[in-house]
């Protein structure tokens, strides 16, 4: 044997070892803490302000990739070691397990019997055949139908249950690798983007994260309407929703109102309601009454404009609040006296038309309504790997339940003629949850005793 060979052997054993698995898991747990304490992916200025670090501290931590640690080379390497460990363990142990399941030992010799912690010997009367048939019947009823073999006047029985639970561990391990593969597919062929669409407008390009120019998509999305609803008696938002329409070559192909938690998916792209904002200035409508004459006019116009009033003066809408101190929609306005001198600003409320009565002045102003155009902020994602990840998750749950809660239970029986009658030797084991198996074995012994003594 060359020295080279023994080194590869050592390396192989290292990557197969349980110790490596435990150490890797603990290292992953410990290092993961870093990224929860240091906020990730901020700008250098933000870090130095947030944590009061000097530039040298910042540079040191930056060189350790602590600011995007979950994508750092060392963290990914740790995950890589974890994956290699999982693969090696499985390659090493799986063939033996397959053998245990597919080619079970059908005839237990005395050596094997000695290894069982659950064993019993019963002396029965009759022939080997008659005793065997009784044992087969009891096993079949209480446990599983046994495989029967005969040799040299002896009878060998073997029965098993839950053999496939042996694979639970490997299903679990494989599922983690499948999740890794799914994540990689998503990283390579998927993307995250966002797009803002103003009400009434449509887009055919989205902004990939970190990009400075939009990326075209091969269909159009139009935002017909955006709504925000509030719970009664407070400013707590209840629901944001956007009426989206998907168009191809100018034809409407899909229509859906999306809300938070209810996205729209078309051609592998999913649009999520994520934010909103105001687009452009609001348009106001007021009713203005001349106190002296009682004449009233309705005027309409955008923020900052001089809206002429009869008599040469002008009303100027200055600002708008959707819900001013829980009094509902309010506008701040002032009246230009005609000499381009702004008057004192004052508030008018849509829900309280009489509010302006008390102010005095030449005009009584009532806010009729305000039309504010919104844009809806959509997150756009494409992730072809996500189904692979879900498959992995499903296998992870199924596999770990199998690995934890099912066990491979086996029973061997040897029946042989003895001087005083027929000797029945029973032994069995379970690869997990031995106490429960011991209880079951005691029951089985009793049943066999009853059957054989009758």
């Amino acid at each position, binding site marked *: 044997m060359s020295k080279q060979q023994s080194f590869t052997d050592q390396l192989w054993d290292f990557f197969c070892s*349980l*110790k490596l*698995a*435990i150490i890797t*898991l*603990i290292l*992953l*747990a410990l290092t*993961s*803490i870093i*990224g*929860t*304490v240091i*906020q*990730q992916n901020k700008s250098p200025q933000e870090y130095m302000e947030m944590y009061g670090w000097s530039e040298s501290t910042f540079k040191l931590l930056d060189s350790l990739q602590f600011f995007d640690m*979950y994508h750092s080379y060392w963290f990914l390497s740790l995950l890589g070691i974890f994956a290699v460990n999982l693969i090696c363990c499985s390659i090493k142990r799986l063939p033996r397990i397959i053998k245990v399941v597919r080619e079970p030992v059908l005839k237990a010799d005395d050596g094997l019997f000695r290894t069982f912690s659950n064993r019993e010997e019963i002396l029965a009367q009759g022939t080997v055949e008659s005793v065997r048939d009784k044992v087969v019947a009891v096993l079949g009823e209480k446990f599983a139908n046994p495989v029967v073999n005969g040799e040299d006047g002896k009878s060998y029985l073997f029965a098993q249950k839950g053999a496939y639970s042996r694979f639970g561990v490997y299903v679990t391990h494989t599922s983690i690798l499948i999740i890794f593969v799914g*994540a990689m597919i998503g990283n390579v062929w998927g993307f*995250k983007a966002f797009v803002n669409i103003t009400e009434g407008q449509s887009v055919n390009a989205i902004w990939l994260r970190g990009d400075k120019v939009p990326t075209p998509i091969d269909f159009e999305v139009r935002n017909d309407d955006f709504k925000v609803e509030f*719970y009664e008696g407070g400013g*707590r*938002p*209840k*629901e*944001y929703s956007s009426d989206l329409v998907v168009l191809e070559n100018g034809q409407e192909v899909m229509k859906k109102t999306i*809300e*938070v*938690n209810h*996205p729209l998916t078309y051609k592998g792209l*999913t649009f*999520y309601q*994520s934010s909103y904002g105001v687009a452009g200035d609001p348009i106001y409508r007021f009713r203005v009454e001349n106190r002296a004459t009682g004449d009233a006019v309705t005027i309409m116009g955008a923020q900052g404009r001089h809206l002429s009033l009869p008599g040469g003066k002008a009303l100027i809408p200055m600002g708008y609040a959707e819900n001013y101190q829980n009094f509902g929609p309010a506008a701040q306005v002032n009246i230009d006296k005609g000499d381009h001198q702004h008057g004192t600003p004052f508030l008018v409320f849509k829900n309280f038309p009489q509010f302006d009565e008390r102010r005095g002045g030449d005009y009584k102003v009532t806010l009729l309504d305000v039309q504010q155009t919104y844009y809806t902020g959509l*997150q*756009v*994602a494409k*992730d072809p790997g*996500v189904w692979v*990840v*879900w498959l992995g*998750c499903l296998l*992870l*749950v199924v596999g*770990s*339940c199998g690995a*934890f*809660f099912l066990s491979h239970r086996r029973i061997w029986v040897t029946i042989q003629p003895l001087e005083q009658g027929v000797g029945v030797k029973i032994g069995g084991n379970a690869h997990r949850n031995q*106490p429960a198996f011991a209880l079951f074995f005691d029951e089985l012994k009793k049943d066999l005793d009853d059957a054989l003594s009758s």
Partner: protein
Amino acid sequence: MDSSLFFNITTIAYFAAMVVFIVYLTSKNEAIAFGATLICWAGFIANTVAIGMRWYEAYALGYQQAPLSNLYESVVFFAWSILLIYLLFDLKYKQRAIGAFVIPFAFAGMIWAQWSLDATIAPLVPALQSNWLTYHVITCFLGYAAFALACGVSFMYLIKVGKEERSAEESPIGGLLGMFPSTKVLDDLNYKAIMVGFPMLTLGIITGAAWANYAWGTYWSWDPKETWSLIVWFIYAAFLHARFTRGWVGRRAAWLSIFGFGATIFCYLGVNLVLSGLHSYGGS
């Protein structure tokens, strides 16, 4: 009659059960242990009724949401989960003494919730209005509760094993420890509880990821809460694998279980109170 009355009954019952369990340890009278278990059942039923009524009260206010919407509701649900897991373990393994080390977690939760948490029923913000919230919270908390039981049992193990080693030559241990299950049983219960908790935590992480993907298109974003749940998962995964290695049963396993529960509590509360992120129920 409203839910707060039943929450009060729950708190009192858990306190009483805790005291009676301690009396049991000193008196060694099985009848007392049975009484403590009955009190646990009574408290559990009151806890269940209280959560049910709170659900109804939210519904009456016009909010269609399960009572899992803020820190207060999550803490009382945590107490409920601990009792559920404890009572199931009690039915199966009938080790009464562990109640003295598990019920205090539930009592601590209840008393904290009632004394200093805001019990107002507030409507959910849009991001949380999803059935995934219910699946996610229930699986996570059943996992946390099993880890709480494992932690309590691990404390018992460490106390008992320490005493055993010091008085190895003398007669069997008397006093309070006489009623403790054997160290072998405690070690096994620790393992069994984690075997229940681990798949639950796994499901909790998966339902969280599925929800995040459905709501934002990202199943994993290394948010501090997500990361801490993974840290907890890593710790218990290490625990489960350590069982197969010589030298990692017994004392070290008990410590690992206690660390694991410490990490669990940090994941549940610390992340919200100390760090910042998506799970904002603990924030001010």
